[in-house]
């Protein structure tokens, strides 16, 4: 990966305006800003959005935070809605109803609720049909907008409001769904998993590739939620770093079927380092729960090995 200079990239005009109502320290808008910075200057964009924190906070009438055209329709249909927008672009271009030099890109954002769960069918359909668009899941691992309920993106043993830790419960019983692999199995041209890293190079290059690869692309973007994960807002970059260094959240891409690992930690950190920072895993550190952490570690290891195998082919 080359051709990235943070200081140049930061000169680009901001495409997400301030004044939105996301919580202080929200990871989602950091991610959205990074994705939008990958748009080339002069290109127009239509932004889609599934119902969720990002939507209710960035377009609360009459205040839109978006510099580009924006459409929110409902919770479960961001994929289908943007399919319609992208197809309209094709139709209007074909019929000469848009200026020939007006170049539009289509990016939709959905949380893990709107993407992994309720909007999964709509996403799958849009990907399979191959619309020229990017679907970005800002994955914060639970339904944060409604108050931290578990989703299929929630990691095992997380304490959420529908998998509360109690005398009979250690939190969520199931492992998280590997959505990036599932979308890669749709055989779309480009799928990548990324998060917020120090210089934002990984997310920038992947966003640029996703936006400028013809056809359907998918980005799975981990954006921590300080409320749901229970950490100090200032610590977000450290949390993301630990997710990568423990291989909980590996950075990889699948470009036209070719799997590539974009970062391999020199020394894979134990999963405790990631879990310890977050209140939602506090119970795992009580005496007697060592086996739960061991199980968590085993699952991380298994997935990491599987990913390495895919990337070695």
């Amino acid at each position, binding site marked *: 990966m080359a051709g990235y200079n*943070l200081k140049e990239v930061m000169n680009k005009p901001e495409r997400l*305006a301030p004044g939105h109502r996301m919580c202080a*320290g929200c990871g989602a808008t950091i991610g959205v800003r990074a994705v939008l910075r990958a748009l080339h200057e002069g290109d127009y964009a239509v932004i889609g959005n599934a119902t969720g924190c990002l939507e209710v906070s960035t377009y609360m009438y*009459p205040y839109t935070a978006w510099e580009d055209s924006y459409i929110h329709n409902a919770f479960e249909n961001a994929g289908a809605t943007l399919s319609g927008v992208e197809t309209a672009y094709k139709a209007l271009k074909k019929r000469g109803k848009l200026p020939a030099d007006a170049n539009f890109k289509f990016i939709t954002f959905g949380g893990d609720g709107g993407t992994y769960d309720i909007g999964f069918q709509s996403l799958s359909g849009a990907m399979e049909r191959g619309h020229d668009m990017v679907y970005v899941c800002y994955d914060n691992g639970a339904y944060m907008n409604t108050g931290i309920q578990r989703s299929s993106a929630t990691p095992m043993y997380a304490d959420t409001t529908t998998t509360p830790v109690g005398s009979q419960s250690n939190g969520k019983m199931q492992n998280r769904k590997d959505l990036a692999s599932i979308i890669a199995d749709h055989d779309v041209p480009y799928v990548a998993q990324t998060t917020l890293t120090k210089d934002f190079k990984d997310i920038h290059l992947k966003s640029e590739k996703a936006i400028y690869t013809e056809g359907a692309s998918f980005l799975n973007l981990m954006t921590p939620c300080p409320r749901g994960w229970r950490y100090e*807002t200032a610590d977000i*970059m450290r949390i993301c770093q630990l997710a990568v260094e423990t291989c909980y959240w590996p950075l990889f891409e699948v470009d036209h079927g070719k799997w590539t690992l974009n970062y391999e930690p020199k020394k894979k950190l134990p999963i405790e380092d990631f879990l310890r920072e977050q209140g939602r895993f506090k119970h795992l550190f009580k005496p007697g729960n060592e086996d739960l952490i061991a199980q968590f570690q085993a699952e991380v290891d298994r997935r990491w090995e599987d990913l390495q195998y895919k990337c070695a082919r």
Partner: protein
Amino acid sequence: MRTDVNTINEKTPHEDLTEGLMMFAQATSKNFNTGEWRTNTPVFCAEKCKQCLLCAPVCPDSAIPVKDSKRSDFDYDHCKGCGICVKACPFGAIEMREGQ
């Protein structure tokens, strides 16, 4: 017809609201002051800043303006005081102070 956000508020009669509550405008949220939410405030120390810009992309509120590869002071109308930038700065050029 383009929408002037200043003509819409909670007293606006129904006739003057936009059709379908669409906004024929962009980035009107700039008019909404989220700086009021702040309980702690980051303070920029220009003399310590090396202009590495690692603070600029981590802001969830686009409140660190960058021009010609240089950051300037915070947009306090919108900074919510989360403190992410303080930890992102390798040079101690941002300090967190209590209060607004």
